[in-house]
């Protein structure tokens, strides 16, 4: 077991960011914290990264105490923080060289790893460039390369693709997936359900500092969502009226969002036909499979990216 938390709590004055959570993390798995902003994900990551002492509860990382042995633990972690903290006074290559030195690695080892890592994140041709002009996606890739310089046993990623455009996100996902295939243990936070579904073997849905649910993405969808979801969009003037009418519709559940109505059903096409029979005509309709977003909506009554 790499990380063990029991009743882990983080309080800032009178605000409780993490309200007593329990989890175990095993070697080789990809574990995700899914939740909206302010759910307590980053606070949890900082505690695991040994840069934030827990207020109470137990936390053991690699069998060590993060407060007493923080420095020794950090030597074995890789961290991709939410905000880029690249060294803008240095070049791409120097960022890896200098960062490796912070870990006390010999220069020769760092040089070898730097070459391999820059290849891995496809930045070898930018090695001599300054960091500042790089795009957000390239900076993120460099941050990932940097976090791997000490060949960490656990890689901690706090919202690794927030703020990136879709194409850049896919490149990052691809690299993280390869790391996972190589057996690197990943802990990541995200508020993108597609990210969690793609990368996580196991995840917790976090809300207000607590776990609302825990399991594999597939389990969670099976447990908290219907096989299919029918999304309906009505003329804004008819939106509320349609909502009232569909409340008693024979679906597992109905959610009235600001712009759409979601019906959780077994067969989406059948349900759409039934809706039309009641005399309602949606402007657009979409039948899709249940996702983690639906799970989150069900568990918390809120959407993830609100």
């Amino acid at each position: 077991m790499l990380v063990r938390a029991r009743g882990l709590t983080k309080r800032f004055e009178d605000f409780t960011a993490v309200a007593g959570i329990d989890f175990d993390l095993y070697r080789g798995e990809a574990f995700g914290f899914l939740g909206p902003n302010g759910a307590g994900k980053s606070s949890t990551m900082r505690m695991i990264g040994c840069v934030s002492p827990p207020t109470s509860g137990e936390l053991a990382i690699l069998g060590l105490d993060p407060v007493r042995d923080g420095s020794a633990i950090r030597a074995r972690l890789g961290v991709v923080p939410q905000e880029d903290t690249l060294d803008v006074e240095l070049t791409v290559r120097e960022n890896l060289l200098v960062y490796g030195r912070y870990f006390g690695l010999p220069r020769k080892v760092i040089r070898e790893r730097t070459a391999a890592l820059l290849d891995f994140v496809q930045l070898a041709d930018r090695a001599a460039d300054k960091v500042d002009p790089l795009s957000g996606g390239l900076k993120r890739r460099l941050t990932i390369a940097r976090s791997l310089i000490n060949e960490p046993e656990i890689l901690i990623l706090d919202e690794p693709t927030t703020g990136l455009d879709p194409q850049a996100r896919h490149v990052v996902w691809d690299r993280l997936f390869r790391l996972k295939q190589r057996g690197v243990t990943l802990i990541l936070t995200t508020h993108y359900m597609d990210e969690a579904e793609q990368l996580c073997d196991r995840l917790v849905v976090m809300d207000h500092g607590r776990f609302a649910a825990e399991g594999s993405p597939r389990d969670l969808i099976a447990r908290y969502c219907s096989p299919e979801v029918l999304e309906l969009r009505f003329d804004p003037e008819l939106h509320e009226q349609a909502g009232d009418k569909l409340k008693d519709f024979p679906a597992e559940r109905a959610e009235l969002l600001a712009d759409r109505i979601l019906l959780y059903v077994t067969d989406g096409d059948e349900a759409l036909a039934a809706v039309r029979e009641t005399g309602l005509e949606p402007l657009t309709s979409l039948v899709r499979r249940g996702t983690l977003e639906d799970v989150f909506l069900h568990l918390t009554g809120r959407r993830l990216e609100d």
Partner: protein
Amino acid sequence: MSSAASRMLPPTGRMLPPAGRLGRLRRAGTDAGSLRLIERHARAYRHAWLVFASGVFEPLLYLLSLGLGLGVLIGKVPGPGGRLVPYREFVAPGLLAVSSMNGAMYDSTFNVFFRLKYAKLYDAILATPIRPAQLALGEIGWALIRGAIYAVAFTLVMLALGLVHSPWAVLAVPGAVLIGFAFAAVGMAGTTYMKSWQDFDYVILASMPLFLFSATFYPLSVYPRPLQVIIECTPLYQGVVLLRDLVLGAPGPGLLWRAAYLAALGLAGLLVTGRRLARLLLV
């Protein structure tokens, strides 16, 4: 928080490493942390060598203007022990002391604030095995290395201009480094309390009068006695006298007290800085 933070402080008597091989290995691996930061700065300044080199010129320009220019009009002034010395010889060690203070303050306030709040350099570094107190030591160590280079350059120029008459002047370089240590450590400790760039007006407010009135440009004897007492308490005055006595070849036992005073200030600043960085960054 404070107890957790102090546990992350470096090897003082309070935090003894766990016994055994693992503890020793861990210390060997991480206690060089402050050197790694110095290494980083050395590398970063390779891209800004002109900025680095400019530090040599500031005190030289003052020396040319005040010492050689104004000095022609002034003639001789009372130096150590009341002995009359040419003005340029009087003012040169004072300028060395002032530039040691300014360089140290600049490194430890503006540069540190930028790295702390904007570049997020320390956040990045604290994700590695390096600890906050090692950061403090590294920053101050860097300021001293830089200061030492400038002090050597200035002392060589003094020598070339014939302003040095005593072998004691060799000690002016470590003396200048000691002044740098005191101001870098106190400056960095103060910086950890700063909220915005506006707060740096306080740095100017503190360093400007020190610069002008610490008997740098004229002897202390021009002031009435009560004012003299106040000025004798300031660290820059002590530094100016320290260097002047050395360069003009009149060291006395007071030299040790002055050095001890500056060293004590520096150590206090260093301790405060390590603690404050832990408090600010490890939350």
